[in-house]
């Protein structure tokens, strides 16, 4: 077991990612194989093989809805509705020589105007000819048709003489729309969505404006975990919330952070029973059964997963706590999920439309710009909707109080030195991290004789405040980013 674990680290492969990327590579190879299809012929001449003589009669009938009947059997081929013409390769590499091929084309009664017949024959065909037998029947003839020949009958029909089914009429009408129109639709769809969403976002922000107080307060408005403060501030749980929780746990004595020459490690502290559920889950993600967990161990635990259920539960635990405290109208995660669902459904619909257009429309398929525009619009919805403010009045008031505390943390005046002030730096550091002002907070203590906190063990000697910050912040930031990146979709 130990050897297996070592092998993973040295090779740097992780089973699930290996499986996923193997699937992606396999799909890419299939795609490449498909892409090899555009082999365009620098088409060469071939000569008729005059071996045996035979006569072939083929009957083609155009039905009133544009479908074709070949030798009495209904075919899945139709006329070209956009150009109102029949272009049908009747003989295509027959594999044997035919002395004469006679194709009888029967037109529907609905065709009353002028019809232009034409016959195209290549790769070894002698003479060709086409003529009207009567007003509804055209005869196409080709003689000395070789085994590799292609004989195509063409008939240009008067406009409106064929009455296709409703679905075909819609497809034909869409195909007839000009490229510029589709491009304009494709660009304006996400642009319009963006404008509407921005309007809604600005409107909601104005309605739920959080007052930034003039005065600062020197104490946190209430004793809540820093991660909940971050969730209230940003309406999302990210790497900062996890980093702040780690520092909070450290200064509460639950973990020890070890700064090493090469890497870092976390050590188990007192692991007190008063830990919140999300904190317990976070610790169980970092530590296995050992007393400490170093960088390699944490990286292995992170990289061996696409997604981590534990980290998702950490996030939802923080959201749930903030919602229970009355800061949000609804659980931000569920609210986000609703918009995410709308975005995903719109994206999948656009993708289905895109694929269907490639299959059912003939080149040039300008309609795909519409679907691309819809994909863009769906991404805009997903991106902006999750940022709509959903704080309650209580949430807005509490946040305002936290802004007053942030003013205190970022005050440019230095602290006078005292032992108590040294403790304050450590105590409020998690809040400073979560409110994105840890450097400003540290600067207030720049001239103090710094004493390294007992929860931070370093191999370096004579660590000052700046060295402490330069050692601690990258560690917690890295771990926070790594752990927040493996949350399941919908838990961001």
């Amino acid at each position, binding site marked *: 077991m130990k050897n297996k674990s070592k092998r993973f680290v040295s090779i740097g492969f992780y089973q699930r990612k290996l499986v996923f990327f193997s699937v992606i590579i396999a799909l890419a190879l299939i795609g490449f194989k498909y892409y090899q299809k555009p082999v365009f012929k*620098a088409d060469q001449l071939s000569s008729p093989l005059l071996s045996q003589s035979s006569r072939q009669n083929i009957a083609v009938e155009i039905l009133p809805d544009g479908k074709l009947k070949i030798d009495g059997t209904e075919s899945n081929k139709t006329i070209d509705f956009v150009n109102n013409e029949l272009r049908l390769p009747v003989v295509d590499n027959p594999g044997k020589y035919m002395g004469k091929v006679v194709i009888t084309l029967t037109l529907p009664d609905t065709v009353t105007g002028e019809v232009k017949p034409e016959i195209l024959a290549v790769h070894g065909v002698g003479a060709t000819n086409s003529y009207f037998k009567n007003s509804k029947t055209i005869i196409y003839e080709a003689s000395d048709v070789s085994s590799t020949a292609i004989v195509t009958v063409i008939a240009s029909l008067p406009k409106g003489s064929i009455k296709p089914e409703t679905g075909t009429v819609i497809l034909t009408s869409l195909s007839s729309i000009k490229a510029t129109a589709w491009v304009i639709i494709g660009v304006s769809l996400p642009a319009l969505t963006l404008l509407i969403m921005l309007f809604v976002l600005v409107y909601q922000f104005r309605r739920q404006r959080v007052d930034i107080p003039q005065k600062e307060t020197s104490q946190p408005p209430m004793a809540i975990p820093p991660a909940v403060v971050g969730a209230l501030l940003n309406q999302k749980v990210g790497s900062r919330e996890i980093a702040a929780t780690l520092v909070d746990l450290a200064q509460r004595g639950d973990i020890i952070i070890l700064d090493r020459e090469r890497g870092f490690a976390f050590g188990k502290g007192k692991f007190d029973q008063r830990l919140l559920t999300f904190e317990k889950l976070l610790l169980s993600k970092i530590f296995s059964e050992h007393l400490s967990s170093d960088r390699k161990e944490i990286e292995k635990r992170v990289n061996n997963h696409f997604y981590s259920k534990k980290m998702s539960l950490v996030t939802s635990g923080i959201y749930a706590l903030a919602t229970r405290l009355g800061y949000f109208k609804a659980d931000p995660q569920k609210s986000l999920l609703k918009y995410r669902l709308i975005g995903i459904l719109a994206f999948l619909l656009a993708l289905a439309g895109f694929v269907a257009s490639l299959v059912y429309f003939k080149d040039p398929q300008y309609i795909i710009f519409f679907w691309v525009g819809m994909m863009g619009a769906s991404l805009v919805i997903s991106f902006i909707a999750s940022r709509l403010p959903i704080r309650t009045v209580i949430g807005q008031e509490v946040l305002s109080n936290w802004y007053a505390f942030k003013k205190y943390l970022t005050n440019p005046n230095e602290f006078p030195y005292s032992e108590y002030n040294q403790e304050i730096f450590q105590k409020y550091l998690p809040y400073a991290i979560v409110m994105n002002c840890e450097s400003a907070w540290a600067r207030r203590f720049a001239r103090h004789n710094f004493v390294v906190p007992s929860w931070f063990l370093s191999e370096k000697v004579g660590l000052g405040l700046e060295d402490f910050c330069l050692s601690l912040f990258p560690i917690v930031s890295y771990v926070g980013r790594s752990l927040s990146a493996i949350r399941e979709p919908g838990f961001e």
Partner: protein
Amino acid sequence: MGNFFNKILYGGGVIFDMCKWIILAVVLIILINKFWVSLFITDGASMEPNIHDKELVLLNVSKYSKAEPKRGDVVVVRYPGDPDNRKYVKRVIGLPGEKLEIKNGLVYINNKLLEEYYIALDVSTEPDKNVQLEPNKYYLMGDNRPFSNDSRYFGSVEKRFIVGQATTIIFPRFKSVPTLKY
């Protein structure tokens, strides 16, 4: 039912999360391929000596969305007899409204000899033809005249069948496709 729905939602979310950038990349490639530039492999020797069999060639698909094909351009054209399934590589020789004549192995446009430096010296153009091109129709021929199936056999071609201009040979050599200075 709720649990099942949640599982579907979760699974869909996972797939969406993992695949959305791949899907967007593929969509982008398809858009570029259809409306800007594309690649194709030649099959056959009718464009010798300029494009060899099995060469990978860059195709400018957007070229003729606004501009008209010029004489000497090497184009990819849908075979008018089977436009959905067959595409050929040929050179534009005659333009709409022109009078094209093939006589004594040479090509004349509006009674003026067309100097075709891109075809081999010992190659002549057969059979004799005298064609008045209709508006919007182009006369296309392969550079390897004795071995090319082109407008001499299937007639002139409407612009709607021309897909784009073959501009550069990418592999196994890198060379721009010679056009005609006329």
